[in-house]
């Protein structure tokens, strides 16, 4: 009797310990699931959605989800939201164990990881069934989420990741009347800016993504042309090709001439932005999202004196001299295991976050939607946003390295760029190293 009681106690306590551990791992999820279990009737559909729109910029997305909930009382939508960086790590882990949420936000690189494993559902049927929805998207906005003609994700935005924000007043002070149109003019401007004691370009590359994404993707395309990129992905062109090496060399030359802040590899982009706000730096190079940040967080005089530009053409480059790296980047995708009513509900939600109505809201809050928006209230836009849309008029998008290449390759290139910026490695050696990884991937 006594020993049985003791056994029970031991059992109970181990159960408690184990469940506590598990509970700690996924506290939020467990709570949500409990809540949903309590209120769900028999025919209620539960969908989970993983996303990272937890901050101010993600307000629109969260509102849309809430609206969806109000409109569809029979669907119980459970959000599993964590901040961006943590989200990437979480999704890599979930992807490895095959336990992705029903719907999730994913970029092209993540999809490359998931699609061969059969985790992601295709959207071709649903898009073809609703031509109005399909034709509402901007051209090429599905490129990053298409594999062998199958579409796996609905884009959430379409923008450039390369934009030079420059302070016109500092440029005038240094005796530069307008943003240089040639590479020589650009290097000249850098020297002049150095002469008046400001940092020409402020960047925060601690996480090693910013320089690679916002400068190098565009700079490399200026040299190699987009054709090379596709050939390289198909295994026909190599990173050791002269064009790619000269792009690396050009970037190192910029660093050597002191174009960047010396602590480029130990600060993050928000610290770099502070340098720009304090007029200690004349330029920052960042994605289109900085338009929102500058109008919201920047001092008023900075906002007014900010101009937009892109890298000037490079001598002997094969790429389109005006194109900028960009695209849709992120998409919402659904889990391949969804069927029947659940799948229908998921498609319904996808439409909710990608229709023109959503696009209009996004544009009116200085966002860059992936859909055509015919009429919107221009007066709601910040001047910089208006300038952005003017600037982007007719510009072509070139591939973003960290979106289109697989994660292992991205890490090698971007870590290498960090090394390159401090002169720790020679361009030719780095190109060889990148090619070795590329070979091992096939």
């Amino acid at each position: 009797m006594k020993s049985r009681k003791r056994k029970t106690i031991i059992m109970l306590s181990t159960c408690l310990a184990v469940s506590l551990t598990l509970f700690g791992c996924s506290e939020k999820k467990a709570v949500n699931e409990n809540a949903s279990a309590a209120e769900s009737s028999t025919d209620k559909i539960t969908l989970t959605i993983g996303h990272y729109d937890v901050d101010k910029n993600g307000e629109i997305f969260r509102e849309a989800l809430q609206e969806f909930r109000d409109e569809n009382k029979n669907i119980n939508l459970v959000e599993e939201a964590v901040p961006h960086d943590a989200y990437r790590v979480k999704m890599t882990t979930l992807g490895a164990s095959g336990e992705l949420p029903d719907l999730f936000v994913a970029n092209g690189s993540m999809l490359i990881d998931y699609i061969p494993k059969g985790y992601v559902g295709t959207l071709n049927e649903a898009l073809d069934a609703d031509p109005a929805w399909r034709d509402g998207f901007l051209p090429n906005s599905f490129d990053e989420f298409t594999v062998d003609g199958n579409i796996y994700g609905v884009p959430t935005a379409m923008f450039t990741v390369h934009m030079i924000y420059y302070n016109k007043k500092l440029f005038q002070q240094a005796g530069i009347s307008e943003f240089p149109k040639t590479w020589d003019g650009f290097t000249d401007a850098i020297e002049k800016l150095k002469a008046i004691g400001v940092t020409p370009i402020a960047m925060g590359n601690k996480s090693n993504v910013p320089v690679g994404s916002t400068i190098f993707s565009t700079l490399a395309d200026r040299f190699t042309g987009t054709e090379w990129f596709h050939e390289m992905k198909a295994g026909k062109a190599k990173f050791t090709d002269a064009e790619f090496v000269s792009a690396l060399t050009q970037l190192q030359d910029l660093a050597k001439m002191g174009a960047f802040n010396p602590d480029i590899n130990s600060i993050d982009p928000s610290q770099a932005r502070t340098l720009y706000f304090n007029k200690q730096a004349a330029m920052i190079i960042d994605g289109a999202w900085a338009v929102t940040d500058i109008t919201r967080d920047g001092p008023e005089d900075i906002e007014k004196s900010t101009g937009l530009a892109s890298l000037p053409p490079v001598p002997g480059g094969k790429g389109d001299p005006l194109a900028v790296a960009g695209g849709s980047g992120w998409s919402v995708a659904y889990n391949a295991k969804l069927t029947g009513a659940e799948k229908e509900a998921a498609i319904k939600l996808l439409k909710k976050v990608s229709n023109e109505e959503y696009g209009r809201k996004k544009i009116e809050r200085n966002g860059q939607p992936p859909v055509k928006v015919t009429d919107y209230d221009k007066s709601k836009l910040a001047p910089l946003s208006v300038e952005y849309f003017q600037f982007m008029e007719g510009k072509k998008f070139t591939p973003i390295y960290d979106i289109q290449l697989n994660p292992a390759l991205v890490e090698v290139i971007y870590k290498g760029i960090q090394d390159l910026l401090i002169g720790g490695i020679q361009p030719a050696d780095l190109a060889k190293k990148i090619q070795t990884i590329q070979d091992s991937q096939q």
Partner: protein
Amino acid sequence: MNNSRLFKLQAGPLLRYLVPILLIYSFTVLVPLVLSFYYSLQNESVTQFVGLQNYMALVKDSDFWFSFKNNIIIAVICVIGQIGIAFVISSFFMTNMLRMASLHRIAIFLPVVLAPVVTGYLWSMIYNYRLGILNWFLNLFNMEPVLWLDNPDYVLYTVSVPLVWQYIGLYFIIFLAGMQNISKDVLEACEIDGANWYKKTVFVIFPLLRNVMTVALTLCITGTLKVFDHIYVMTGGGPGRSSMVMAQYAYNNAFTMSRLGYGSAISIGMLILCAIIVLVMFKWIGGEERG
């Protein structure tokens, strides 16, 4: 003897009492270990069994050996820094000249209770190029500011300093406890024999602390071989790979490069290397004792 049954361990109850803790232990240590060994035999996306291919790649991976070398350098710095400085400080505590001993003790121990991430952030502020206190100090003497965390030539040493700073207190407390256990008679005897502080420390206290020293060395070396948080926060292994350590390399492979199989192989490799180093160390210390 009659009372011996008081101390006799019975297998049945012993096992039963151990069940809960063993269960927790296996869930938190054994299962993950076996799992990561299992993952390490799979391909990058953990879909296919590839045998020892990951380990073959690991042996040839120059980045892995580079980070191992970095780990060894950090371990040497930490052994000298943490254990050396802690020993010197605790031997000061054995003299009669020290005032307000408990205040000093608390102050020295305080960094140990900080979370490594906090230490990392704290020191990245200290090292900051523009706002950091170190460069402010250099500025007072009209010296050029130094890029503490950006220069591959010395970034490894700058990231080691916070490690030393944080854990001196731990070894200090261990040594102090050890020293206070040394019989007063021995110490008094050598004082009467005319030994000064230096002689007392080197020839009496140090040899008597051999066992404590072994514990401290083991803790210090195993601790620094698996160091991660500080470096992750301060540089993330950068610039490039200059401050890369094994744990950071495993993390990068598994979580940013999405190569879970290879990442697991790195951590198993790490385990093996750490085990070898600790075994060699034990052998060396044990052998000296016999000789």
